[in-house]
């Protein structure tokens, strides 16, 4: 896919895809152990991995994968059943392969896995189901139509070898259609445009025919029909390929006129049309692009938008109508370009969810609880960075749901629930946010226990008045854990406080809903994209700053009288509630005189409300976020910067950090007297 890249990196990327595909297939097999296409798919993934591993010098990987491939070959042939235990071992083996590819694999572990694999294969060999493949015997042969992808020859596929392999099955009649061969000028000699139709007179199972194509089946068009089904009128006329007058018989009959091939073509085309839809969905074209190139493109588009807004200012002031028309066109185009650009960074959340099938499978084995995982809304798209950063918190939440939430099967039956616990992962878009929720039908979170724990750990004063919602917030405190014993699942470093911090770093929020006895639901609300925020543009002194709109509650005017009255105490009375405020002019040390009518922007930081005094509110502003450079990243008050329509830079306030910094500054002032 990326011929210019380092081949080892390319192999790694492809191997990761193969492993993911094999894992998805294996997990499917747990539910539908006899499904032939899944087995084939897993086998092909393993085989390809082995082959390309050996090619790129990953010999240990090739050798190890060989064992799994052999095991699956026997499953494929119907000699061995794909039992749950066997699949589980192969899943573990898959993890080991990942280790072999990325480095850090333990050789002894690999050997143990192979031994276990062989044991499971032996065990499963006894329980092999009746071979479905042989049920199909009774046909008198097959009519096989196939067409290779254009680049098949370049990829080292030899059609003659395929034909020879089919001849081994029985007597064959072979016809070739040249209908799709382009004219000589347009023909590249390495491309394959031929379509073959082969009739095999042999009583072999259908799978034997499919085996011929097993390694290229994904990219090609293949249709296999029993010979008897083909109407006699369409029966194969062995086409006179080389009968076209004036054409040399070989090399490939490029100039062969179409009429010569016609007897075959109709049947072939019809046959090809009904070829598996499954393969079509897979061949959705996609291109791997390094993320930094996307970021560069994003920067360029950002510049374009700024240049465009300058242009429209000039155009608006000009009497030249042509200039205005062009400017409007450019405005439309650059807006579209920006929207397209935003979508480029979006990936479906399904990729993230699919990892949890494996996790839940492992958890189920570890805890002895039977668990049903339901996922919903996989096609919901979120920013790629969001997907990456949410992976760990979600793992923790799913673990929590299984470990703390779900009861053991006995407890569940006693409570009148189904034996299998249910964990539901869902994603949906709501306005400018994506809501990802993890719910379970377990025992729920017990407020009383949370409170007891918090009191025991000194997180809350005994006897303090706390609402239920406030109590639930305690689980996000650092150092909080309700698990009476620390199991291997929970309490492994990532706590709920880390989950909360990660979500907040993505400018999102967490909701917890729970009902004792019937389960809990944790929802993460994350903005659709990290690259853009809605902000309130304000002026402090001569500088302009952006306050994230999500933090803003309301804006008020600070009259000079109130300002004077507030001199000593920095508190404001808003509808009978006391709201502390910070004068940003002081915090930023602008050294300017206050405006006569200052404004107060009330922001909320978690439970607290704080007023920020600014000189002017300019308006709301959609902002492309740029990170601060190395030289400035130690200044916590700002989460980033943005470029305004006139090309100047405005800083984006990090509200919680700003409030903390303001408090510190005030404390220093008090200390100084």
């Amino acid at each position: 896919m990326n011929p210019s890249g380092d081949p080892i990196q390319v192999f790694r990327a492809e191997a990761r895809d193969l492993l993911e595909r094999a894992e998805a297939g294996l997990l499917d097999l747990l539910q539908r152990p006899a499904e032939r296409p899944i087995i084939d798919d897993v086998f092909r993934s393993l085989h390809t991995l082995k082959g390309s591993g050996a090619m790129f010098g990953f010999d240990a990987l090739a050798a190890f994968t060989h064992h799994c491939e052999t095991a699956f070959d026997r499953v494929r042939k119907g000699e061995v059943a794909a039992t749950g235990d066997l699949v589980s071992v192969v899943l573990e083996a898959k993890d080991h392969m990942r280790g072999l590819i990325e480095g850090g694999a333990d050789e002894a572990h690999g050997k143990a896995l192979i031994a276990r694999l062989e044991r499971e294969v032996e065990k499963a060999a006894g329980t092999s189901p009746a071979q479905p493949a042989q049920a199909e015997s009774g046909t008198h042969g097959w009519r096989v139509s196939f067409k290779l992808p254009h680049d098949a020859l370049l990829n080292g596929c030899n059609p003659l070898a395929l034909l020879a392999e089919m001849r081994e099955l029985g007597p064959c009649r072979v016809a070739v259609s040249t209908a799709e061969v382009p004219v000589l000028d347009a023909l590249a000699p390495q491309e394959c445009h031929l379509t073959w139709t082969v009739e095999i007179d042999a009583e072999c199972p259908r799978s034997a025919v499919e085996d011929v194509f097993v390694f290229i089946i994904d990219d090609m068009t293949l249709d296999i029909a029993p010979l008897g089904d083909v109407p006699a009128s369409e029966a194969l006329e062995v086409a006179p390929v080389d009968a076209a007058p004036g054409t040399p018989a070989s090399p490939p009959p490029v100039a062969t006129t179409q009429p010569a091939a016609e007897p075959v073509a109709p049947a072939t085309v019809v046959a090809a049309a009904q070829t598996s839809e499954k393969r079509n969905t897979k061949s959705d074209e996609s291109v791997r692009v390094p993320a930094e190139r996307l970021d560069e493109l994003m920067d360029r588009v950002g510049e374009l938008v700024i240049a465009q807004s300058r242009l429209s200012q000039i155009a608006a002031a000009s009497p030249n109508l042509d200039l205005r028309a062009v400017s409007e066109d450019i405005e439309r185009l650059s807006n579209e370009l920006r929207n397209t650009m935003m979508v480029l960074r979006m990936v479906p959340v399904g990729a993230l969810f699919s990892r949890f099938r494996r996790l839940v499978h492992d958890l189920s084995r570890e805890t002895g609880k039977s668990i049903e995982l339901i996922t919903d809304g996989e096609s919901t798209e979120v920013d790629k960075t969001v997907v990456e950063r949410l992976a760990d918190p979600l793992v923790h939440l799913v673990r929590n749901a299984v470990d703390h939430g779900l009861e053991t099967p006995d407890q569940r039956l006693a409570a009148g629930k189904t034996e299998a616990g249910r964990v539901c992962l869902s994603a949906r878009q709501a306005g400018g946010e994506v809501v990802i929720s993890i719910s379970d039908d377990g025992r729920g979170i017990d407020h009383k226990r949370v409170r007891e724990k918090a009191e025991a750990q000194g997180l809350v004063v005994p006897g303090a008045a706390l609402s239920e919602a406030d109590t639930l917030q305690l689980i996000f405190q650092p150092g909080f854990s309700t698990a009476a014993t620390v199991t291997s699942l929970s309490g492994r470093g990532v706590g709920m406080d880390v989950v909360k911090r990660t979500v907040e770093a993505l400018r999102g929020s967490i909701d917890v809903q729970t009902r004792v006895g019937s389960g809990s639901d944790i929802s993460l609300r994350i903005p659709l994209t990290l690259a853009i925020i809605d902000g309130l543009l304000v002026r402090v002194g001569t500088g302009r700053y952006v306050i994230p709109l999500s933090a803003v509650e309301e804006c008020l005017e600070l009259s000079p009288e109130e300002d004077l009255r507030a001199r000593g105490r920095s508190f404001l009375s808003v509808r009978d509630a006391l709201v502390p405020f910070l004068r940003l002019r002081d915090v930023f040390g602008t050294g300017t005189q206050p405006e006569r009518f200052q404004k107060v922007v009330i922001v909320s930081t978690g439970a607290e409300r704080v007023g920020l005094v600014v000189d002017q509110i300019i308006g709301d502003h959609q902002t492309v976020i740029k990170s601060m450079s190395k030289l400035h990243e130690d200044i916590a008050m700002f989460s980033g910067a943005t470029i305004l329509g006139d090309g100047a830079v405005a800083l984006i306030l990090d509200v919680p950090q700003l409030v903390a910094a303001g408090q510190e500054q005030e404390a220093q002032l008090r200390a100084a007297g």
Partner: protein
Amino acid sequence: MPAQLQALEPQNSGSAGAVEVLTFELQGEIFVLEATMVREIMDLVAMTPVPGARRFAAAVINFRGRVIPLADLRIIFGMESRPATIESRIVVIEISIDSTPTLVGLLTDRVNEVTTLDLANSTPPPMVGMRYRPDFVRALVHREGQFVILPDLEKIFSATPGSVRSMQPA
């Protein structure tokens, strides 16, 4: 031309050899920096002060859609700041800060020329008798009858905030 060929040769541990440099002025002193570091020389643009930043890099600017810090070497070398003139320029350089390549704008009073400098004529900064902190100066190079200053930019930008802040007048 031999001079150019020489210039292309890599600089050997700073001892001998010629390098292409950009010369610029700060408060009448001539400074040089390696031409390979320079990305662009631009006119002054709107600067956005960053409250709480260390004093020598107290602002950011928009450089082709990116937000980059603007550094004022006059503060590092203890010179007084004067208002900008029509000759003031920003030199955008790429420099590695904690092994991350970073674009930084340098405020200068005037940019003179790109020239070839023979580092064989350089002397390490004397420990006494210089107005500037010797560890921020890589070498003094003799050129056309006067000494020009080759600042140690990596050290200046990697310096911990504390050590730079201690440079500030009390």
